[in-house]
């Protein structure tokens, strides 16, 4: 039986090491997102003009893993062993994670024979959503205040 447990333990360690390696490689990929080439795109040549797109990006990620094993303390011949308690050994492990990447264009760098300029990109949808939200603040306050004082 000891041999079996040792084998199980070894297998469990191998799985856990594999999982931790996977986590580390994912972590390295995650940290690599903090680089310049994730913000500035590849230059695009249009005639004598070169365009470099720029974007901001937000990466959120989290993951974890765990494993465990155990075996029953009772021997089959022990009197106080309840049914189901005994010599069995078991183990398990698991892991999970999730993440999200948000990206948005910010500006375009235009390099031409006349010079270099940076043209900002305004996201109309986001601006309109902000305006609706701001109008909601004012309308909400107006409705709340026009109802009059509460009487108890």
């Amino acid at each position: 039986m000891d041999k079996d447990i040792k084998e199980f333990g070894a297998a469990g360690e191998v799985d856990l090491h594999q999982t931790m390696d996977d986590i580390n490689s994912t972590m390295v990929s995650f940290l690599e997102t903090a680089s310049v080439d994730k913000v500035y795109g590849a230059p695009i040549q249009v005639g004598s003009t070169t365009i470099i797109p720029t974007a901001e990006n937000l990466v959120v990620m989290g993951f974890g893993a765990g494993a465990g094993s155990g075996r029953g303390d009772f021997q089959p011949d022990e009197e106080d062993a309840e049914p189901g308690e005994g010599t069995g050994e078991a183990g398990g492990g698991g892991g999970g994670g999730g993440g999200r990447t948000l990206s948005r264009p910010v500006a375009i760098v235009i390099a031409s024979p006349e010079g270099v300029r940076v043209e900002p990109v305004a996201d109309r949808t986001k601006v309109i959503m902000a305006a609706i939200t701001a109008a909601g603040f004012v309308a909400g306050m107006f409705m709340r205040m026009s109802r009059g004082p509460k009487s108890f």
Partner: protein
Amino acid sequence: MRKIRQSKNNMANKTFVRQTNTGEPVRVGDLSIYPVARSYRINMPGVHGGIIWNRPVAVIVENSRGDRQELPVVDRTRQLQIAIFSAGLFGAFLTWLLFRKSRK
């Protein structure tokens, strides 16, 4: 593009890390354009993962004589969002103030 310069504040085990990276130059005629980006990283203690926010900061234009000019990258969407949200909050405060005075 490859990172050619990094700020020293890039230790992975810190909770909050701010990095400024400069990429390899893009050559257009006799001009060299260096892209500059900033990244903010939040490492949550005891958790694998975190948050990374990358944004462009500026481009540095260098001519053949070695003269450098920094052109900031303006985030117009963010500026408009902040202005509109601030106006909304101010408008809500003004509404509250006007109604409060008229009740007295």
